[in-house]
């Protein structure tokens, strides 16, 4: 998608709510590349040093006040990169502030009720909301959509594998930043702690690929978790059934260097494999491979990645060159993730009680 720049003076002003690693390592480099479309004008964080550090890099104003940022008339687009639990309220506030668009990092809510509220506010205010789900915008994934024919209807097995070294490794590949604290001591003997970690795994890691899984599910009303287990030190293993499909989710974070981020959809006669780059790395797109009858078609990698195309879409929406994506599918994504997290928790506590 290409949106004409219309001159640098016509750039959209961006305000960041939350100046942590995602803002620094993901969005700032992308916006630096898209400087014909965007300019960062205001940065808010509850930590003064964080706000000041990020703002000073891009010549923006720094603030500790969300209200001050939302009242800034030079901010056209609000990017929400705060901790997950604040997303919903901040999305609603940004919509009510009359901004031109909101980009919210995933998950944009943690409950179905919040999701419904966001949908209502978006409809009422007309402010488009884009959820930062980089894999659904990845050019490799979009190429897969063009390849897969009727596989969404015929696939019987879906697999998401996310095996990652610590995020800090890839953050350091993407930018220079101070090291983050490692994982705190975890009491693996406490079933409640283990269940909470499993939920974190779903809502923090698996959630990246759950929208992809959902593309192959007509619905998930009969979602059944057949097996759920924590993978140490942090990760998950799920075997589930929904809508006649078997779904396998594997997540594991380890101290090594080798990542594997792969999504597979397998049907009787065709199969799709999409290999993604690790998070944070601005290393181009995923690679999609469609196999059918012994023939394989490979698409990608492409130079752009999902983060970049999210921002390009946002610019196109504001310019009226693209329709805003419907919010309902994103709400269903959240419902799906929450349903898995809760069912996994129940399964685990039932097993360990």
């Amino acid at each position, binding site marked *: 998608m290409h949106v004409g720049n219309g001159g640098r003076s016509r750039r959209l002003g961006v305000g960041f709510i939350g100046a942590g690693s995602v803002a620094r390592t993901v969005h700032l480099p992308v916006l630096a590349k898209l400087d014909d479309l965007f300019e960062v004008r205001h940065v808010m964080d509850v930590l003064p040093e964080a706000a000041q550090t990020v703002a000073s890099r891009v010549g923006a104003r720094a603030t500790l006040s969300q209200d001050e940022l939302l009242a800034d008339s030079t901010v056209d687009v609000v990017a929400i990169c705060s901790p997950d639990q604040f997303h919903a309220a901040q999305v609603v506030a940004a919509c009510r502030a009359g901004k031109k668009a909101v980009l919210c990092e995933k998950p944009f809510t943690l409950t179905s009720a919040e999701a419904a509220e966001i949908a209502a506010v978006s409809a009422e205010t007309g402010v488009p909301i884009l959820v930062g789900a980089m894999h659904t915008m990845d050019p490799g994934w979009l190429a897969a959509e063009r390849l897969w024919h009727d596989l969404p209807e015929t696939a*019987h*097995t879906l697999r998401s594998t996310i*095996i990652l070294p610590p995020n800090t490794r890839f953050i350091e590949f993407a930018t220079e930043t101070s090291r983050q604290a490692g994982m705190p001591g975890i009491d693996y003997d406490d079933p409640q702690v283990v269940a909470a970690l499993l939920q974190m795994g779903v809502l923090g890691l698996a959630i990246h690929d759950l929208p992809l899984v959902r593309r192959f599910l007509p619905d998930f009303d009969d979602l059944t978790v*057949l*097996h759920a*287990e924590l*993978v*140490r*030190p942090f*990760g998950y*293993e799920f*075997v589930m*059934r929904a809508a006649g499909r*078997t779904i*396998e989710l*594997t997540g*594991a974070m*380890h*101290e*090594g*260097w*080798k990542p594997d981020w792969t999504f597979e959809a*397998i*049907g*009787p*006669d*065709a*199969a799709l494999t999409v290999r993604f780059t690790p998070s944070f790395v601005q290393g181009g797109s995923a690679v999609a491979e469609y*196999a*059918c*009858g*012994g023939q*394989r078609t490979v698409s990608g990698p492409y130079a752009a990645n999902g983060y970049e195309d999210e921002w390009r879409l946002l610019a196109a929406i504001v310019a009226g060159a693209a329709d805003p994506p419907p919010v309902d599918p994103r709400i269903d994504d959240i419902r799906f993730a929450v349903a898995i997290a809760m069912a996994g928790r129940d399964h685990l506590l039932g097993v360990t009680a």
Partner: protein
Amino acid sequence: MSAFTVDTRQLPGLAEIVASLPLSLRDAGNGPPQIIGVTGTGTWAAQATAAVRNGALAIVVEAPVLAGLKNVSPAAQSRVVLAWDFAANPGVHAAAAEAEALRGGAGIAKGAVTVGRSTDIQVALLDLLVAAVRVFGEISTLTVRHRDHHGLYLTGHLEGGAPLTLSVVVTNAYPFAMHLRLLTGEGGLDVHVPSPATAAPAEVRVADADGERLLPTVWVTSRRACWQDAAAVAAGARSGDIAELRRAVSLVPGLWSLQG
């Protein structure tokens, strides 16, 4: 070691195997074969037992079904070589040797085999179970989580407590293959075994803090490797394949009821 005789008409493609192992095997012609080849249909155990009784030195059973396993005679046990499509690949043995040092630090283990629609799912599962036992070592009792005509899923644990998931998935999308993974804190082991129809080698990769090693590749089909093993058994070696299969089968209570 003199070449042992084989009735090359017993199984399709056997003449080719025998011809490729001229120092180990030769065609029996009209004489009695010293090594017998049987397909792994429901009567394989009876055939193997009878063959040993009649003087056979080794028996190769190709893709055996579960039925009959209990009926293998004690005399035949150590003379039977089970020709698994995947587990018998030399790469699996190489992976098993590497895995020994990694199992204690395992965080998760996975085994997946994809087979075509004409494949017996139970045979594919037995193949995967044997490969898993070879590479992952001690495994807890496995639970069948799901089974239908598209495949099946089982879960359990390694001896150290790491979760293990095994799956058989049916698709004609691409050539059959098996993939085993043992993930450790610093890396782990990845084993990719290609279709048994090709001599393309299994790829065994071991990752650690220093990088990744691809073990030397062996361009031999599982089937040829098994007939080499059979020649060794005929020369006096003892096969542990039946005992190993019994151990693998014991990991899945109710596996007998999954037949068909």
